[in-house]
Each structure stands twice: as structure tokens, then as C-alpha cells.
């Protein structure tokens, strides 16, 4: 048993390390992609082609002065970024990112590439990411400043509104897959129809995929739904009064939430680690490519679309997205009942 435990601990450490790195990589990707979309080159001076830019950013954030407003609630002020960061990391705990592998025969039994495999994995991701709301609400409240409070209340109201559509999109995939475990859902997407079209659920449930991505963008306070952090209206929303490492925690939490949403979307809709030409033991390469593609789409949408007004955002979430998600679930259930899949 000892090699298995060591392998599992190594996988946990590796997943944590890669999540931290992904925040840094996303900083660079965002700056470069936004630059190319805006017909300029972005960071080029820090290291070759600006590759050391994230390092420069991290060093800057570490050395900044730690400020705290005098009237802020000290305990909650420090607790809020911790909650945001912990929820962001913990949500990735039940997301599998590769098939069972024995690492070229180093282990006696194959071990799956995940931090933990529970049979209600989809709901655990949903539950833990809904804990992230507290980080934002407490940050706004503890800062004792009007911009922060407004930003926090807007942001949390937006997040809990879009969580409903998020859950409904998940429900339609669960109906098709017949299981709550992410590993089972991915394994149900192996193989291909007619030899070339992969059995991904995005082809059976395109509307659910769309709803999931839109709700995911709203959940992570990104792209056209980042009104709570609108630099033009609210200074910086709920993280106005934060600096240095506390701000870095929020910053990191946002990117890691993006990565988690993309990873879960890959597992649910894009076939996870299954793909042509590579044996399934190395499926994590496909997983990385698909997650990378979704993250690129995230950045692309952010720098292309204008920000939506807050009441338009809430209207869209409640009047269009939620009914569409509910109708999707009903149609899926009717389809399964009729076709007996």
C-alpha cells in the first residue's frame, strides 16, 4: 500500500503546484492575448518575449505595503481573501484530470489522476465554489467603504443568481450520463460515432454547454459580467481596499476559479482526457489542451465584448438563462424517457 499512498500524495502536491502555476501562466497569457487582440505586442522586456512577466508581478505583489483601513474589521478583513482562495483551490479537489495509470509500471495498481474521487463529485465542485461567495461578501463588508460594499453586494447577488442556471446545466448532463461522478461521466464519452465524431456530450447537449460557459463566466466575475470589479464605475469593487498579498489571494482565486470551471467543462462536455492519436494513459495531454483552449476563449471574450449593465445582467440571468436551462432539463428528460437511452 505504501507506494500507492506516496503516489497519491505526489499527485495531490502536483495538482496544487500546477494550480498555482496556472495562475501565473494565466497572467502572462491574458496580457499577451489582450495585446495581440488590441494590435500591440504586450510585455517583451521582462525576459525573452516577456515570459518572466508573471514573476515580476508576483515579486511586486509580495513587496507591496500591507494596508488595512483603520475602521475595517481586522479579523474579517484578513479572513475574506483566505476564504476566497481556499474555496478556489478546494473546488478542484474532485476534478479528475487523467485516466488511471501506473506511471510506467512503478506502481502495483493503477491510480487515477485526481486529488480525490467521490461519487458525487459534480455536486462537490458546485458546493465548494458556492462557498467563494462568502469571500467576496465579507471582503466588501469588512472594508467598511462604500465602493467595496456595493461591489461585494452586486458581485454576490450576481453569483448566486447564475448558480441556478449553472446547476441546471449540470443537471442536464447528469441526466444524460446517469452518474454524478466526474470520472464516470468522462468515461462515458470515450469512443466515437461513425469513426470520427467523438462521443462528447457537447454534441448531445449544446445548449447546456453554452449555458454552462455563460454561467461559469458570471460565476467567476469575468468578461462581460465583471461589473462588480468595473474599474470605471466602482474603483475596484470588493477588493478596493486590499493590497499586497491579500489582493494577490483574490487575484489568484479568480484565475483558479476560471481554471476549475474550464476543467469541469472539459470533463463534462468535451470528453476530458479522451482524444485521438494518444494512448489513454497520456490523456492528460488532451486534457491540458482542451482546458487551455477554454481558457483562451475566456480571455478572448473578455477583451472583445463590452461590459453589461448590472440590471441587464440580472435580467439576462433570471429571465433568459434560467428558463432556457430549465427547458433544457425538461427536454433532456423527455428525450431520455422517449428514446430510452
Amino acid at each position, binding site marked *: 500500500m505504501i507506494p500507492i499512498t506516496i503516489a497519491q500524495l505526489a499527485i495531490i502536491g502536483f495538482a496544487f503546484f500546477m494550480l498555482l502555476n496556472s495562475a501565473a501562466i494565466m497572467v502572462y497569457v491574458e496580457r499577451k492575448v489582450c495585446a495581440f487582440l488590441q494590435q500591440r505586442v504586450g510585455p517583451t522586456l521582462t525576459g525573452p518575449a516577456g515570459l518572466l512577466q508573471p514573476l515580476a508581478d508576483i515579486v511586486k505583489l509580495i513587496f507591496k505595503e500591507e494596508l488595512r483601513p483603520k475602521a475595517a474589521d481586522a479579523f474579517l478583513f484578513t479572513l475574506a481573501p483566505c476564504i476566497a482562495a481556499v474555496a478556489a483551490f478546494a473546488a478542484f479537489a474532485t476534478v479528475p484530470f487523467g485516466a488511471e495509470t501506473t506511471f510506467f509500471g512503478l506502481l502495483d495498481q493503477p491510480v487515477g489522476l485526481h486529488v480525490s474521487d467521490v461519487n*458525487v463529485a459534480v455536486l462537490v465542485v458546485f458546493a465548494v465554489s458556492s*462557498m467563494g461567495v462568502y469571500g467576496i461578501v465579507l471582503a466588501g463588508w469588512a472594508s467598511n467603504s462604500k465602493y467595496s460594499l456595493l461591489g461585494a453586494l452586486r458581485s454576490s447577488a450576481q453569483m448566486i443568481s447564475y448558480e441556478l442556471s449553472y446547476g441546471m446545466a449540470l443537471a442536464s448532463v447528469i441526466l444524460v450520463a446517469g452518474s454524478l461522478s466526474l470520472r464516470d461521466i468522462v468515461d462515458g464519452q470515450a469512443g466515437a460515432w461513425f469513426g470520427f465524431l467523438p462521443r462528447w456530450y457537447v454534441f448531445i447537449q449544446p445548449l447546456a454547454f453554452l449555458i454552462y460557459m455563460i454561467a461559469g463566466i458570471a460565476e467567476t466575475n469575468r468578461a462581460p459580467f465583471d461589473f462588480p470589479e468595473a474599474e470605471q464605475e466602482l474603483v475596484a469593487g470588493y477588493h478596493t481596499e486590499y493590497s499586497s498579498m491579500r489582493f494577490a489571494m483574490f487575484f489568484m482565486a479568480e484565475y483558479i476559479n476560471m481554471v476549475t470551471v474550464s476543467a469541469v467543462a472539459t470533463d463534462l462536455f468535451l470528453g476530458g482526457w479522451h482524444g485521438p492519436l494518444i494512448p489513454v494513459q497520456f490523456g492528460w495531454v488532451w486534457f491540458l489542451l482542451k482546458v487551455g483552449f477554454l481558457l483562451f476563449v475566456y480571455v478572448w471574450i473578455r477583451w472583445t465584448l463590452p461590459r453589461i449593465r448590472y440590471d441587464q445582467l440580472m435580467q439576462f440571468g433570471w429571465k433568459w438563462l434560467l428558463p432556457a436551462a430549465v427547458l433544457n432539463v425538461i427536454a433532456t428528460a423527455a428525450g431520455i424517457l422517449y428514446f430510452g437511452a
Partner: protein
Amino acid sequence: MVFYLFAAIAVVSSALVIGQRNPIYSVLLLIASFGAISGLYVQLDAPFLAVIQIIVYAGAIMVLFLYVVMLLNAPREDAAEWDRLHPVRHPNAARFGAVLATLLVVQLGWALSRTLGVREAVGARADATVVSSVRALGRTLFTDYLFAFEATSILILVAMVGAVFLARREVDQR
């Protein structure tokens, strides 16, 4: 061993909830208590219920409490008001409450000690697979308890309408 850890967290958090001056701390401590109870549900082979506890209780109901506390701006009680209202300043109320609580624990303890099989391990009689399967839960919910399920949906609708109506601002007669 894990049970005792979660049980200690639940009891200590709940005891602190009722003793806090600041309602925001009370809400946060209650969330910690809910997390511990969710862990106990996992111990009892009910993983679906554990996750639903986090989603519904800790993720929705407590957010509602937090919003109301922030809306009413309740926590900034000054010290004099708090000292005047704290239970230990009302000896009769505190004594009455403590006596009732102790009586309650004694009664519950007596009743529960007369339950059959209470000394056995909680997993002794039945296997875990019957209880922990979400499929079995769903099947029973939608066949045996279908009426209660539909009635609950009407209950939620009524609660939604009631909450919106009760909390609305009175419109000025202009």
C-alpha cells in the same frame, strides 16, 4: 476519531454562535458548525446529503442571513447596550434558560437511552450501499414520497411570494 473531531467542532461552534455580540460572527460560526455536521453526514454514508447541506444551508440560507444582517446594519451595538441586554445581566432569564436546557438534555438522554440497540455501532446492522446510493434515494423520493415532494414545491413558491411581499417597502402615496 474523526467523529469526535467533527462533533467537537459542531458543539463548540454552536455554543459560540449563541454567545457572540456581533451577528456576523454568529453567522460565520454557524457556517463552521454546518461544515462539521456535513462531515458527520459523510461519516454516516450519506455523501449526497452532505453536499446538499453545504449547498443549501451553508451556501444559500446563511448567505440570506448575512444579507439581512448587513442590510439592517445590526452589528454595531455599542458596549453599554450589549451589557445592558446580555443574558448574564438578566439573572432570571439566564437561570431559567439554563435550567430548561439542562432539563431538556436530561429528558432526551433518558428517552434515547431506552431506545433499542443504541449501544451498537451505527453501521452494525445494515450495509452502506443501500443508504449511500443516490439512485436509491431518488427512486424512493419520487415514488413513495411523491406527494410530499410536490407539496414542498408549492411550499417554496408560497415562501418566495411571502418573503417578497413582507419585505417590500411601503410605496409612498404621491
